[in-house]
């Protein structure tokens, strides 16, 4: 039915089966868009956020998926600038995933702000001291870069390849790739960092506030490193997921092992710095601001176990697994380790958004809890469904995995 659109020589499931796969996701997308529309039309009273929990599920989601989406810039950086050719099999998939994560984050942000029609004020009247300005500029620019990077992938479609001019265009674009990768890496470094800086600069929230190195708080650098650890792991997990769903080999193990090793290195570096950062914070930064650090962990739901879980189970353990050649070359361990890395990064983003806001600052103020409303969950779901749909369509109609054909033949 749609066979003339499917890349030559690749096996794809029948159209009805594909339809059966995407329809539920489309349904979820529709439900999510309804929830988002309610928030836009009725206002943010539809959410369970409040003056104290000014940020909720959505900001948490944004921080997490942008960290996961870091695979796009980091892989591009390694491939095009550092010439790690082993990563070429995953680069297309990385670009699509990056595009999904970043555009998803921006869609959610547009629902999250109270006055989306005025969002362009940030470009017109930017406050250069604000981390959010940095985030906004970098996110927008980097999304543009990702869209341009996505075009050559899109042009690989069979129908587009029939137009000679498109082929020339694609070829020209390919020559641009290293430049785009460079620009993308630069922008990404900044906004991954600024997202961390977002919380690290909050003088009034000693739980999140960190000392500055230069003009940036330490979380700026920790976020860059942790995103660089998360990105490759996310590629491992998604690739394995697609492989298991399609019951096909798509990427040879070498590429994934390389990703795992890089992720492990980054994670190890990140953990070392985070440990130092945490010690400085517990002993100097927080008490200096009038907050004994142990008090943060006196709340039932947010004990010190969270810190140990994040650094130990979700940090040191996967780092060891990924750095050891033995476990890295075991497919199961590699996947487990990558999953643990992602959990650790997700937990870190959770702690920084939700726990920061739950902890009271004034001494007579209570500890608060927050549970997202269905509208928030729906909007969240819409982004996930949108990602699945875009990825499914890209996978079906574009040659996302250059090795797919040879792996299928072998």
């Amino acid at each position, binding site marked *: 039915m749609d066979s003339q659109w499917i890349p030559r020589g690749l096996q794809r499931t029948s159209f009805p089966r594909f339809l059966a796969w995407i329809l539920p996701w489309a349904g979820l997308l529709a439900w999510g868009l309804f929830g988002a529309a309610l928030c836009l039309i009725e*206002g*943010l*009273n539809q959410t369970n*956020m*409040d*003056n*104290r*929990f*000014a*940020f909720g599920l959505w900001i948490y989601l944004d921080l997490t998926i942008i960290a996961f989406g870091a695979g796009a810039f980091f892989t591009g950086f390694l491939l095009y600038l550092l010439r790690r050719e082993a990563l070429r099999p995953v680069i297309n998939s990385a670009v699509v995933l990056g595009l999904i994560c970043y555009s998803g984050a921006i869609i959610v942000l547009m629902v*999250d*702000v*109270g*006055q*989306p029609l*005025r*969002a362009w*004020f*940030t470009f*017109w*009247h*930017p*406050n250069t*001291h*604000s*981390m*959010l*300005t940095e985030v*906004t500029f970098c996110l927008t620019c980097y999304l543009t870069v990702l869209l341009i990077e996505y075009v050559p992938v899109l042009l690989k479609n069979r129908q587009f390849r029939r137009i000679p001019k498109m082929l020339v265009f694609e070829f020209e674009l390919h020559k641009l790739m290293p430049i785009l990768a460079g620009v993308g890496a630069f922008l990404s470094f900044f906004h991954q960092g600024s997202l961390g800086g*977002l919380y690290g*600069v*909050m*003088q*009034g*929230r*000693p739980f999140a506030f960190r000392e500055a190195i230069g003009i940036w708080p330490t979380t700026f650098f920790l976020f860059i490193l942790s995103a660089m650890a998360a990105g490759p792991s996310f590629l491992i997990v998604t690739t394995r997921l697609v492989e298991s769903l399609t019951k096909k080999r798509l990427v040879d193990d070498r590429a994934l092992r390389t990703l795992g090793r890089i992720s492990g290195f980054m994670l190890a570096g990140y953990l070392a710095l985070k440990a130092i950062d945490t010690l400085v914070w517990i002993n100097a930064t927080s*008490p*200096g*601001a*009038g*907050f*004994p650090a142990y*008090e943060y962990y006196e709340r039932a739901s947010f004990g010190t176990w969270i810190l140990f879980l994040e650094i130990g189970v979700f940090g040191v353990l996967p780092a060891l697994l990924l750095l050891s050649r033995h476990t890295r070359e075991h497919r199961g361990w590699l996947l487990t380790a990558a999953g643990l890395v992602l959990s650790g990064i997700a937990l870190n983003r959770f702690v920084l958004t939700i726990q*920061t*806001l739950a902890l009271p*600052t*004034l*001494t*007579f*103020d209570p500890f*608060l809890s927050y549970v997202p409303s269905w509208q928030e969950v729906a909007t969240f779901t819409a982004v996930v469904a949108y990602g699945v749909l875009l990825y499914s369509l890209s996978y079906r109609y574009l040659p996302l995995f250059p090795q797919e054909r040879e792996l299928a033949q072998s």
Partner: protein
Amino acid sequence: MPARYGMVIDLDRCTGCGNCTVACAVENNIPPGPPGVTDRTGITWMRVYEADNGEGFPETQSAFVPVMCMQCEEHTPCVSVCPQNAVEVDPETGIVGQIPERCLGCRYCMAACPYHARYFNWWDPKWPEGMEKTLNPDVSPRMRGVAEKCNFCHGRLHTAREKAAAAGNAAIDPADYVPACVESCPTQAIVFGDLNDPASEVAKLSRDERAFRFLSRLGTEPKVSYLSSRAWVRSLADRVLARDQKEEARG
């Protein structure tokens, strides 16, 4: 010399009557809460908290603590975070101004404020039919989706300046500029004025030995101070102090 407007609130005089909260809402065109509003989604630029000494019955002691924007002087947490310059500290008055028309509603400033003194318009502003005729013409109503906060009744400063300008004066008469909460406080627990004027009552009281500021170790130099002769009330200033106080009490 530019002014540095500030306040001193005597916690030993506050009876928690709520006049300040209500007078503030009337003055600043803050709409009534819609059905379903809670203490976490409502808008009260001036809010009175009840604080206690943490002891059980019957040793409990409480104090009422009015909290509004502290007009932080240094590293003003909400100013540096705003992505589009909707918040600023006026160098002429020291007042932290928020321009709702510029705000895009990202709420970063609210997350950044240690005093939780910023409020978001979760709903469209609505007054019962006809009641919009009673709005204060000197303050513009805010729209849904933006943050807002206390600005020391800036509309009243406008009025005072206008009066001075019409008389050809550069400086306002301090008696013409009194925020609504100060004016409405029945026990005169709130004193307002220019901290840069050493002769002003507010400057004197802020140096009183009973005076303290909340979370002053954050280094934001709030311009609102509090007074109390009760040690446990003063120890509410920050958590390290509260802990030390408790340990001292235990011996």
